[in-house]
């Protein structure tokens, strides 16, 4: 059942978090061109997501209509409406990684974390996602955890890589 994996957190309704996000957005009032940069900075503070509460605060601070923010936040792969774990594991499944065993590696991550791809561990520590080309095809199959690239990896490496974040 999908619900078993749903990760509940209320970061985005924490007034302190929202105040921080307002402070990030405020200097760019009327600067629509900075919206993506602002959302990227806000997202990690708000549980690695841009939920409605965050969009509302950014909308107010930057004077950008909320539907526009929704449009942007749902267009780009790196934004999520749902809150995610503390660390995002992004497993490349583009062709160069695919032909070097990305699928087997993904299976190993799922097994080690005990969640299917697209979900967050119950302790809220990891979200496992697939993504398109990370631009490190010489290290295929490659994985990015937050801003760090790992590769080439074999299923046997998975435990060791995750240990750094546990």
């Amino acid at each position, binding site marked *: 059942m999908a619900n078993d994996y749903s990760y509940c957190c209320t970061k985005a309704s924490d007034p302190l978090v929202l105040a921080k996000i307002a402070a990030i957005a405020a200097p760019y009032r009327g600067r629509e061109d900075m919206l*993506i940069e602002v959302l990227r900075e806000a997202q990690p503070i708000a549980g690695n997501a841009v939920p409605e509460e965050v969009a509302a605060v950014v909308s107010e601070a930057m004077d950008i209509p909320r539907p526009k923010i929704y449009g942007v936040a749902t267009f780009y792969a790196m934004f999520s409406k749902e809150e995610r774990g503390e660390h995002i594991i992004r497993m490349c499944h583009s*062709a160069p990684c695919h032909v070097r065993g990305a699928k087997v590696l993904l299976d190993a991550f799922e097994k080690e974390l005990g969640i299917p791809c697209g979900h967050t561990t119950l302790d809220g520590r990891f979200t496992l996602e697939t993504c398109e080309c990370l631009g490190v095809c010489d290290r295929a199959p490659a994985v*990015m955890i937050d801003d760090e690239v790992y590769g080439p990896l074999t299923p046997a490496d998975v435990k060791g890589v995750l240990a750094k974040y546990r």
Partner: protein
Amino acid sequence: MEEYKFLTYNVGKLNPVSATEYATVGGYAGLKIALANPSAVIQTIKDSGLRGRGGAGFPTGMKWTFVRNTEADQKYIVCNADEGEPGTNKDRILMAEVPNLLFEGMAIAGVAVGATKGYIYLRAEYPYVKEILLKALDDARIRHFLGKNVMGSDFDFDIEIRSGAGAYVCGEETALLESIEGKRGEPRYKPPFPGVQGLWGKPTVINNVETLCNIPMILCMGADFFKALGTPQTTGTKLFTLCGNIKNPGVYEFQTGITMRELFEDVGGGCPNGKKLKAIQCGGASGPIVGTDKLDTKMSIEDCNAAGANFGAGDLMFIDEDQGIVDLCENLMEFFEEESCGKCTPCREGNFRLLELVRKFKDGTGTETDLDTIEDLASTMMDASLCGLGQASPIPLVSAIKYFRNEFLEGGNY
């Protein structure tokens, strides 16, 4: 085979973020030449025969002429660093190792067309490159290679970095402009072309990272020197990315005209574990999948086109005998289905249907009629899609059917 290190000459030799170190090895000499005689720059670039390195191969000098000839109070230089094509990593190397070469190229472009502001649109997957670029920009400003009165002249030029947030389509030039403006990265209708109405409606040069890195080299070494490198219609060198089932994956620089076989055997070391090569995808995820009979094709735009291959951004993905072509096509179609922005119908619906059709072959229910449907749909998409994404996305599938038709009809059990 030894690399011909032209753009990558200083890779690993310099502190990437130090403009001073870059200047001690001749860096910013090209900008100095440009500042001394701004009106001569475009002619030099034209004479060099330089063509865009992002995949389309448009003559750079001609692109700049459009922007120079358009009257406007503000013009922009945009660097396309949204290196999203699976199997292409070359721009990452240039930006991480020789960022000042890129800045210099952008500043020269600014001098040539009369732009004072540049943007580097960097893909989100390279946060570690962004750190290097930011530090290098700071240093270049302190040393007066950027900012007000560049190198003591009366020319101002500064560069800002804008990050993407994960969208393949933003590599398309007008989608990229939309994204810099803070919008959804949906391609615009052309014309007007960016050279006339680009960023915020102003004339804009959009060039790939590698293209811009060639500019200072051309000004320093001269158009004739550059023209003597490579093939007649694809002058210069190229950074080739080798990936897939190959022993030594990575980015290597050679003069254009090197053959696929040389890249595969001598540089790449062949397939690992003694496996046999089965196919090559050339020019990224949207390039054709061809058989090994194309291995002797020279890597240049003209030779690749003549052979039915694709030069693209110089990337080659090698596929060994263990890989199923239908499985690979499914993977590629999943990619395009996911990355289609949805603005135009042929691409949005077409990729969805192509994926559906490929999956029929994966589970063994595909028929000859389905292959015909694929070809029919593919030709509609190529003709009617708004941007390069939908125009090119059927290419790997159509070429794979041409070369590996049996694999499709035998149930995809490879």
